């Protein structure tokens, strides 16, 4: 039996699933209400935006603060560059997401739903807008769509609320956090679109159904984006608990021998390929290994590619994506990226390595949002996984042109 749930139904390349087909396949939208929060808590469903935070806890927190004025933000910004799952879900199954958003609105007694979709993600925006046009007048009146700027931190929940309020997608200081005071100062539930889609199915089919999928003790399914050295990169729906080796097989196998795997995208960690294969793709299982599922990006790095150079490139990107509101993040990440790049281009040296460790410790936790923390964790995983490469990295010009003289 196919384990496909979110992606069950018509072929993914055949355009968005319309409302009639959606109802034929799944039945009407259940009434929903505060009891859905209990159901979600029992299933243990965790968020798919990156933090893997339990939905039940989050919804309950917003519901507690809500006095009928709460706001639901369906976060489809997908700022992580290699992630494609949210876009795919919005383009192929928009009504699942809308169902989830409206159910959330009823559960936390919200009177506004904000669809936060990337401004460059045209297919997704068009699909959501067409799907919205098919819904009832009552539902349509609740919703407004805002286009998220194409930047990494724009997907942060406080940035989403800030954008909806003031038109600028920069993270804000907490307290107060969005669930206490977010859009228009109201308690705001910022939830990833995949999480909302899961909630929409759980509301229809229940806890037992949810647990009927999953391997090795994990429950449910999830979307991952397989990228890098695999034959068939792209989005897969897998059962929770699937190992990385199994997922790579599903993606056509590694295209060449693999050296390391990036688990969780740029907000995640590098793991040695040998150790990575048996890792189970489930938030809880990964957490026991000190890793994070993040937004589900699994990047396979070929053995012949240099981990130091890859890391330096990603650090430069993360440094450039700092919103420059906090000194330690803006200056610290740039300094870390520069040090990585120096090691990559001019070869290892003890000063840069010492600085990398020192600055990493100093930068973490000293920004208003989690951007510097994620970047530091990513870097520290690189220093561990590629430790030999970092300490013995040759200068690249020498590696490429053997016997050449050093430039003056």
């Amino acid at each position: 039996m196919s384990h496909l749930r979110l992606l069950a139904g018509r072929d993914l390349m055949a355009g968005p699933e319309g409302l009639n087909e959606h109802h034929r396949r799944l039945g009407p939208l259940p009434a929903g209400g505060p009891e859905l929060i209990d159901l979600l808590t029992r299933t243990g469903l965790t968020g798919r935006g990156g933090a893997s935070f339990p939905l039940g806890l989050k919804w309950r927190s917003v519901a507690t603060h809500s006095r009928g004025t709460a706001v639901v933000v369906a976060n489809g910004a997908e700022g992580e560059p290699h992630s494609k799952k949210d876009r795919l879900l919005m383009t192929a199954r928009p009504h699942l997401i809308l169902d989830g958003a409206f159910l959330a609105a009823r559960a936390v007694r919200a009177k506004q739903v904000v669809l936060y979709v990337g401004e460059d993600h045209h297919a997704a925006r068009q699909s959501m807008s067409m799907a919205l046009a098919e819904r009832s007048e009552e539902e349509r009146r609740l919703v407004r769509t805002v286009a998220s700027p194409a930047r990494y931190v724009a997907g942060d929940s406080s940035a989403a609320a800030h954008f909806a309020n003031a038109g600028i997608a920069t993270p804000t200081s907490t307290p107060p956090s969005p669930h206490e005071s977010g859009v228009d100062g109201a308690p705001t539930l910022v939830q990833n679109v995949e999480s909302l889609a899961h909630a929409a199915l759980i509301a229809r089919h229940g806890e037992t159904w949810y647990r009927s999928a999953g391997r090795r003790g994990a429950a449910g399914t999830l979307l991952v984006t397989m990228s890098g050295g695999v034959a068939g990169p792209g989005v897969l729906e897998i059962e929770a608990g699937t190992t990385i080796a199994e997922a790579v097989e599903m993606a056509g196998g590694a295209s060449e021998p693999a050296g390391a795997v990036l688990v969780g995208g740029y907000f995640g960690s590098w793991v040695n390929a040998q150790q990575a294969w048996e890792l189970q793709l489930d938030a809880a299982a990964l957490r026991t290994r000190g890793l994070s599922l993040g937004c589900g990006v699994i990047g396979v790095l070929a053995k012949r590619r240099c981990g130091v150079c890859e890391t330096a490139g990603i650090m430069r990107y993360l440094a450039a994506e700092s919103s420059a509101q906090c000194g330690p993040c803006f200056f610290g990440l740039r300094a870390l990226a520069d040090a990585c790049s120096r090691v990559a281009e001019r070869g290892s040296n003890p000063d840069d390595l010492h600085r990398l460790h020192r600055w990493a410790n100093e930068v973490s936790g000293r920004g208003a949002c989690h951007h510097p923390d994620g970047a530091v964790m990513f870097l520290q995983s690189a220093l561990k996984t590629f430790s030999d490469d970092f300490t013995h990295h040759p200068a690249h010009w020498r590696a490429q042109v053997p016997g050449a003289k050093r430039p003056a």
Partner: protein
Amino acid sequence: MKKELHISIDRIKCDGHGLCGEILPELIRLDDWGYPIIAPGPIPEQLMPLAQRAMADCPVLAIALRRTERHKPAAG
């Protein structure tokens, strides 16, 4: 019952003026770019007057003294 207070910095308001590091070097040191690194844990009683002075002197009012150590909530 002693009230335990912790130094808390609003990282967005902080502009790296560095007065806090001058006033309370026992608990605050400045990183390579002039921004404060706070020693974890509660403020010792004998340093409270200096902590209050650091809070009052901050040009952008970025320092607060809170009862609990700030832990950032989940990003999701």
